[in-house]
C-alpha cells in the first residue's frame, strides 16, 4: 500500500478511534461538526489540516480551538503510534485508506456529496475502479424468488456488458446481484457498512479480490461492526459512485432501501434512479416514481442495458439543472461539450486561471465549466491550489 498522506494522517488522528477504544481516559475523537469547524478555522489561516503535524502544529491548535478543547485535540494528535499500528494492520490485510484531500479519493464523492462526502474511505482492491461509475443495484435483504431472479438477471447482464455493479454487499439483493455479475466475468464494488476487514478474508470475496474483479470499500473503520446508522449513511455513497441506480425492491416508507432512495431522489439527485415494477410493492413503486424515480424498462439484452446506462451519463449534468428552459439547457450542454473537447485530454493538473485565459473567458465561468466537467467525471479535481486534470476512465478493472 502507498504511504498514507499527511492530511489523511491528521484526519485519522482527529476523527478515528484507533487503538484503545476509548480506554485510559483517551479523549473521544472529534465529531464531524467539530472536525469541520477546526478545518475551517485552519483554512481561514491559509493553512491545511496537515500543518497540525508540523513544528507549528501546537500553536495552530491553540489558535483554532476553544481553550477547553486544546488538551484533548493535542492528545488526539499525539496518538501517532496508534495510527501507524492501525495503518500497518490494514496494510498487511491489503486494506488502503484515503482522505478527502487525497488525489486518489473518488472525485464523484467530493463533487456529488460535497460536505457530506465521507472524510475517510477504506477499501481493498483497485481504488481507481471507484471512479468508473456503474450500475447501483439495491434492495432489501429478504429477497423472494422473483426479487432474487430480477437481481440476478440484471447482475448477469451488467456483468456481460462490463458495467460495474455497485451495491451494499449485504445479504439478499446486494449479494445476489454482485455474485451474478462477477460470475459472468464482470466487476463489482461492494460499499460496506461494517466489517471490511473480515469481508476481505472471506473465501468467496478473496477469489474476486485476487483477480481484481471486486473492490470492497467502506467509509467506516475496517474493524467496525454492524450498526444501523452506518448502513443508512453508506447508501449515499453507493449512489454517488454510480452512473445510475436500480431499486429492485423496497418497502414503503420504511427500511434502509427506502430511506436511501428518498435521500437520493430528494436531496442529492446525482444519478437517475430506476425502480423495478413489482405488483406486490405497488405502493412503494408508485411513491418512488412520484419522487422522481423512473420505471425500470424491460431490458433483456446487453445492448439495451448499455444504452440505458450510457444515456443518463450524458444527460446527467443537464437533468440536474432546474429553472432553465430546455433550450437554454441544450445550448449550455453544447457549449460544455465544446469546452470539453477544447481542453481535454489534460493529463497535467492545471489551474482555472490558466484555462480561463486560454479560452478567453472570465475565470468564474471557467471554474463553473470545470466543476461541471468534474461532476460528470470527465475531469478530476485536486486541492491546494485547486487544479483539474483528466480522470483516467479505464483502470485495471475493465
Amino acid at each position, binding site marked *: 500500500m502507498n504511504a498514507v498522506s499527511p492530511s489523511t494522517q491528521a484526519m485519522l488522528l482527529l476523527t478515528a478511534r484507533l487503538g484503545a477504544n476509548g480506554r485510559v481516559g483517551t479523549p473521544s475523537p472529534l465529531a464531524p461538526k467539530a472536525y469541520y469547524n477546526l478545518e475551517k478555522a485552519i483554512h481561514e489561516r491559509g493553512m491545511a489540516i496537515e500543518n497540525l503535524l508540523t513544528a507549528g502544529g501546537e500553536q495552530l491548535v491553540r489558535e483554532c480551538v476553544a481553550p477547553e478543547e486544546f488538551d484533548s485535540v493535542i492528545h488526539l494528535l499525539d496518538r501517532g*503510534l496508534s495510527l501507524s499500528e492501525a495503518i500497518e494492520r490494514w496494510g498487511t490485510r491489503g486494506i488502503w485508506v484515503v482522505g478527502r484531500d487525497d488525489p486518489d479519493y473518488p472525485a464523484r464523492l467530493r463533487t456529488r456529496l460535497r460536505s457530506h462526502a465521507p472524510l475517510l474511505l477504506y477499501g481493498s482492491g483497485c481504488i481507481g475502479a471507484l471512479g468508473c461509475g456503474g450500475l447501483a443495484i439495491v434492495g432489501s435483504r429478504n429477497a423472494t424468488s422473483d426479487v432474487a431472479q430480477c437481481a440476478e438477471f440484471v447482475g448477469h447482464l451488467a456483468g456481460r456488458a462490463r458495467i460495474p455493479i455497485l451495491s451494499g454487499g449485504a445479504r439478499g439483493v446486494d449479494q445476489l446481484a454482485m455474485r451474478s455479475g462477477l460470475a459472468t466475468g464482470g466487476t463489482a464494488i461492494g460499499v460496506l457498512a461494517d466489517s471490511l476487514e473480515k469481508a476481505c478474508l472471506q473465501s468467496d470475496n478473496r477469489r474476486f479480490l485476487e483477480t481484481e474483479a471486486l473492490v470492497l470499500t467502506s467509509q467506516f473503520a475496517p474493524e467496525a461492526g454492524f450498526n444501523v446508522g452506518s448502513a443508512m449513511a453508506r447508501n449515499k455513497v453507493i449512489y454517488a459512485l454510480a452512473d445510475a441506480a436500480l431499486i429492485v425492491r423496497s418497502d414503503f416508507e420504511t427500511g434502509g432501501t427506502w430511506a436511501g432512495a428518498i435521500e437520493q431522489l430528494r436531496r442529492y439527485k446525482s444519478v437517475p434512479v430506476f425502480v423495478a415494477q413489482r405488483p406486490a410493492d405497488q405502493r412503494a413503486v408508485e411513491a418512488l416514481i412520484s419522487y422522481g424515480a423512473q420505471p425500470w424498462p424491460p431490458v433483456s439484452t446487453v445492448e439495451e442495458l448499455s444504452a440505458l446506462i450510457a444515456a443518463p451519463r450524458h444527460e446527467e449534468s443537464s437533468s440536474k439543472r432546474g429553472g432553465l428552459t430546455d433550450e437554454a439547457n441544450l445550448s449550455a450542454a453544447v457549449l460544455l461539450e465544446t469546452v470539453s473537447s477544447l481542453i481535454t485530454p489534460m493529463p497535467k493538473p492545471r489551474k482555472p486561471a490558466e484555462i480561463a485565459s486560454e479560452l478567453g473567458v472570465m475565470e468564474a465561468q471557467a471554474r463553473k465549466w470545470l466543476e461541471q466537467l468534474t461532476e460528470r467525471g470527465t475531469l478530476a479535481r485536486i486541492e491546494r491550489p485547486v487544479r483539474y486534470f483528466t480522470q483516467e476512465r479505464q483502470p485495471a478493472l475493465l
Partner: protein
Amino acid sequence: MYDAAHALELLYAATGVVGARFHEGQEESIRSLVDRRGRLLVVQRTGWGKSAVYFLAARLLREQGFGPALLISPLLSLMRNQIVAASRMGLRVETIHSENKEEWDDVERALANDTVDMLIVSPERLNNERFQDRVLGTVAERTSLIVIDEAHCISDWGHDFRPDYRRVGRLIEQLPANARLLATTATANDRVLRDLVVVLGSGVEIVRGSLDRPSLQLQTIRMPDQASRMAWIAERLGELQGSGIIYALTVSDADRLSAWLRSRGFAVEAYTSLSENRPALETGLIENRLKALVATTALGMGFDKPDVAFVIHFQSPPSVIAYYQQVGRAGRALSRAYGVLLAGAEDEAIARYFIETAFPTRAEAARVLEALDNAEDGLSKSELQQSLNLRWTRVEKTLQLLSLESPAPLVKDGPRWYRTAARLEESFWERVDRITQLRRDEQGQMSEYVGLKTGHMNFLVAALDGEVGGSHVHIPSLPDTVDPRLVSEARRFLKSSGLAIVPRKQWPAGLGGRILPEHRPETGTALSHWQDSGWGRSVAEGKRALHFNDELAEACASVVREWGLDAAHAWVTCIPSRLRALLVPDLAQRIADLVGLPFAQVFDRRPGYKPQKSMGNSYYQARNVRDSLTLVTNVPPGPVVLIDDIVDSGWTMAVAAWLLRSNGSGKVYPLALASAAPGSP
C-alpha cells in the same frame, strides 16, 4: 522546555557521579527530542551512552505531563543493569517479553494506572496479537517517545537479520511527522544508513561518532579442531587478567565448553537462551566473581560492564560486524583489553546452516499457501501440521515471514491462519536471494578477517565505513601454540560428556494428549553430537562401515554402569532397522555383554516403514513410528536400556518406551550414540 541544569541533575543521579558530563552529542539529542519533537538517528559505538539519551528524554517528557516512552529492543532481558541506572533517576521502566510472563498482569495494571514511564518490548512481542490487544492499544494512544534499538535491523543490508524488524520499519514509516522518534545503532555502514534515512524520513538528524576502539588488542588464530581450541582457552584463561566473555555459536557448544573449563578449575558459567538464572550470571561477571561467561549471542548489546578484560571467540561469528559488536564489549573503561578469535573447522558449516534455514523455500511457501487456500475458514496450528508433511519449524518460519509482508499473503486472526487476497510477490524471493547472498559475502569477509596478520581494528572499522587510522594499543598478542597434553585431556573430556535425551511429554495434536508419566522413558544419554569432534566422527564412520567400533560400545557401557541399574532384573534391547538389520542389534549385544545384562530383541518393524528422516513434523514422525514399531515377544519385567544409533526428534524413543512400559517393563533408559537435533544459539 528543556532545562539544562535539571538534565544534569538527572545525569548525576543516573550515573551516581556528581559532576558527570554529557558525552559529545548527548545533550543536543535530548534537547531535540524533548523540545522539537525531533527524529534522530544515533550511530555511536556501544558504550557511548545511547541509553542516557532516551532515559533522560523519557524522564523529562514525563515531567511535562506526556505519556510513557516505548523502547523496542531485541535483547531486552539484558538491559537489567541499564534499568537500574534508569531507576536511579526515578524512571519507572517495565519490560514485557517471553521470559517474564508471570509479570505481565502487573505490568499491564501499572500501565493502566499510568505508573510506567518507559515500556521495553521486543519486536516479536510488538508484533504479537495478544500484546497488541491487551497492552499496545492502551500505550500507543499516548506514547510520547518511540525508541528503536539496533535500528540497523530495519535495513535489508544490516548484518543482523531479524524478520520482525520488517514490520517495525513500516510502523516507523507510517508515523506522523509530529511523533518523537529515536533510532539507535552501533553498526550501520553507509548503505544501511541510507536505508534508515529513507525509513525515518529526510528530516532525520544523524548523530554519528567514531567507531574505533583503540584499547583493543585484536588477533585471530585458525585452529580447526575443537579439542585444541578448548585446550588453548584453558591454557590462556589463567594468564589473562580480569574477567571476560567467551562466545560460542550454539547452546551445546557453550554448555560443553563451560563444563570443560570448570573441570579445569575455572569459575565460569554458560550463558545461553536456555539458562534460567541469567540475571545472577550477569551479576556474577559484573562483580568479577566469575572469570568468564561462556555465552551465545543471548548475551547481547544491553550487557554493560565497563571492565571486560577479554572477549574470546570459540568459533567465528557469521559476520565481521557481528564480531565487532561482540568484541566491542571488551575494554570500554580499560586502557587495554584482548579480543581473540579462534576459527574452527565447523564454523562455516554452522554459518551455512543458519543461512540456508533462514528463509522458507519456494516449495514450502507454495504448500503452506495452498493448504490455507483450500481451507474454508483458515487453519489452526494442529490442522496445519496434519495437512502438511513438513517440519513444524519450517511451517512456522514460512508463516512468520510471509505474514510480515505487506500486503501479506496470509494473516493470523486469533488462533487461526488465513489466506488473504494478496499474492506472494516475486520481490519477496528477490529479497530472499539478496539477503542470502549478503550473508554469504559476509561469511567471505569473515574468513578474510580470520586470515589477517595485522590491522584487525582498521579492517573492522572499514567494514562499517567508519574512519580508519586511529592509533591502537601495542601489547603483546597471545601465543598461538597449545600444550598437546591439554589437547588430549580435552579430547577425553569430549568423549566422556554425554548429551541428555529429554523425554517427550505430549503426543502431537491429533494423536492423543499427554503421555502418562508411567509410560515415558527416563532422561537418557546421547554420547555425542552428530559428527562432533568427540565421538561424533566414530559414529559417522561406523554408520558408513556398518559396524560401530568397540570404543563406542565401551563408552556406552560406561554410561550404563553409571545408571546403576538393578543387575538381577535389568535387561537391554534396541530399536530395529530394516535397512541395516544387524548394525544396532550387534552394538546392543556387545554393550549388554560389557555390562553383564541380558539382551532381548523384542521389537520389529512392520513392512512399509519409511525412514524417519522423510517425516516432516511431529505428527508424521510419531505416526510413522506408532504404525510400524511392533513387539514380537513378551516384554521382560525389569528396567531396560533402550539403544538406538541416532536420536533426532525423539519420537522413536517415546513410542518404544510407551510400548515397553504399557506391556509390563520396568523403567526405560534411552541410550544413543549421537544426537542429530539441530543446535540453537
